[in-house]
């Protein structure tokens, strides 16, 4: 048996985790967090696997996963962008920011780009109101995103070098 977690079958990793904790059914959310860490998302197959392992109805697992916005049933992009829709960002135009990010990435909030590079979501307040409107990418805060160029610049940092989108945008306000 190989002990290197990198080489271990992801289902085996998940089972090992479940086996290691007491009160399994009671810790469903904890287990789902771990599963999302391992698989990147929670497809039906993974949810079903957890249902069998915990002897819980699959519908119950699905109900929990669908309730919490942190859990995702679709594969996520390499980078996850979150536009803040909290009150301060909202009054500073985060709705426009969201639309512009959606247009630059060519997806709607909640979706993932075809090249699997970006997923876009929205969050409530992240406590960076002084920098409003803000967007986080992989947890890093990008503030005062007021022009299309600001947004292009912020996103370009996550694109592989030399891709066309890296070109400078205009300085027009969004």
């Amino acid at each position, binding site marked *: 048996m190989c002990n290197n977690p990198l080489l271990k079958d992801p289902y085996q990793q998940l089972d090992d985790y479940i086996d290691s904790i007491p009160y399994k059914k009671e810790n469903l959310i904890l287990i789902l967090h771990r599963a999302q860490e391992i698989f990147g998302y929670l497809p039906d197959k993974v949810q079903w696997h957890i249902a069998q392992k915990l002897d819980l*109805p699959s519908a119950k697992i699905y109900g929990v996963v669908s*309730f919490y916005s942190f859990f995702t049933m679709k594969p996520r992009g390499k980078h996850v962008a979150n536009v803040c829709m909290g009150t301060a960002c909202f009054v500073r135009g985060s709705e426009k920011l969201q639309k512009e990010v959606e247009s630059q990435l060519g997806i709607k909030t909640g979706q993932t780009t075809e090249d699997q590079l970006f997923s876009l979501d929205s969050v409530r307040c992240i406590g960076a109101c002084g920098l409003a409107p803000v967007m986080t990418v992989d947890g890093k805060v990008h503030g005062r995103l007021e022009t299309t160029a600001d947004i292009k610049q912020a996103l370009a940092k996550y694109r592989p070098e030399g891709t066309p989108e890296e070109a400078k945008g205009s300085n027009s306000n969004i």
Partner: protein
Amino acid sequence: MDIQLTINDISLTVPAGMSILDAARTINIDIPTLCYLNLHEMRLNNHIASCRVCVVEVEGRRNLAPACSTPVFDGMVVKTDTQRAILGRRTMVELLLSDHPKSCLTCPKNLDCDLQALAADLGVRNITYEGEESEFSIDKSSLAIIRDPNKCIRCRRCETMCNDVQTVGVYSAVGRGFETVVKTAFDLPLHDTSCTFCGQCVAVCPTGALMELDQVDKVWKALNDPTRYVIVETAPAVRVALGEGFGLEPGTIVTGKMVAALRRLGFDRVFDTEFGADVTIMEEATELIHRIEHGGRLPILTSCCPAWVKFFEHQFPDLLDIPSTCKSPHQMLGVLSKSYYAETYGIDPQKITVVSIMPCIAKKYEAARPELGQDPVTPDVDIVITTRELSRMIREAGIHFDLLKEEDFDHPLGESTGAAVVFGTTGGVIEAALRTAYEWLTGKPLENVEFEPLRGMDGIKEAVIPIGERDFRIAVTHGLGNARTILEKIQSGESHYDAIEIMACPGGCIGGGGQPYHHGNLEILEARANAIYQEDRSKPLRKSHENPAVLKLYQDYIGEPYGEKAHQLLHTSFTKRPKI
């Protein structure tokens, strides 16, 4: 500890912890409810307070309180009939209706819908709230249950029934906020889940969100096709419930009127599923004795209930060898109609349509199981309709049911004994089997045919019945949660029984998913059970092996019970299925 409170200026003393709703009921004050459902005997208590229809005023409390889930306290002052409370309730119903299809006239639940009744009772005259309406696709995948989530009011009674009582767990509330709706795992079509099609979700759904697959028009089509020879058969539990659809008291026995109505509808032969039940006992009692004499695996489990069969196929696939291999009585009657009866009377079996009238929704699914037929184009039973659907057909035909003169079933597949009648309620199948097994094993007549310890509404009943030298350990359960408890004890080796009867629906077939709606009143089920036992007592023959028509069937056609021909026609096999 008791506490004192006043409701509408009436002072009363009730136990602490009681809800306002229950306290009000003790002094005959009715507070309207919708999502709330407490079926104590079934251990179903849905008091999630999601609909807010039962709101009342509580002195000192800022907002209105849901009566179903607010406990009383000492000195509490409650008003259930103030303008604020009444308008509050009306507003709640209006809000529910704002996201509900306004298609009551064409809804299959028309005139049987709790939401519709509330709108009428609470004086809803227009819906002032306009806004987004849910748009879900209708799930028509299964052969038994239709799900229309657009009509779901998120009361979650179905979920409570499926999870807590039946322990099948097919449903869950999915999503959040306005998007929330009760769905299956991964939004799979119901057909692809572990659903047993017991139909108890349909029995408790207050609206038309969960309905049986309507097959009435298929029956009309067959009846109007002159090339078809249409045979109908009726289950025991139908005759003690059908009258409710015509305003008769629950528990009224309408066997003769039902037969007359079926003849008026145009069926060529009116047979009785009870004949099939007597044949089932011939087979099952022989199978039990065979297992005892040949060291076969015990306990033997009854297999008459198709929802129970599907339950163990999904949930206990390692126990597939213990249920009896007998087909269910209506399947036996179907196959005998198309073989024995057809051959005896010179009718082409390909021209026979068998229609079963059942208290059950799962029978629709069962009849379509591919192994339950002689070949793919000759299923044992062609169409299954529920008690509710038959009641509608009788109204569609303009028959005055209560004025009909009583008539008898047709020969020979309409002959039955009291043992077959009791199949319709919990404990009945095993009681019928014991009446026969006793006499076969001891060679002595059984004087008292009524096995009291096996009767009644307790979820799990156990008894030791001495037969000759041997003590038979018997268990009877109804409700799939109780069945699970028993099966787990068998798996772990904790319990040892010789025979177990299992029925999926609480109360047995009298409480089937296809029966007239009980709307939360379980006294109706007791009245039906009493009627079943009354019908049994009224029969001159009360043991299946004394049914002369059944004996003739074996003599002329089948040969030995549990023999080769019997296996070919009357027995079946089970399939391992995944748990989803």
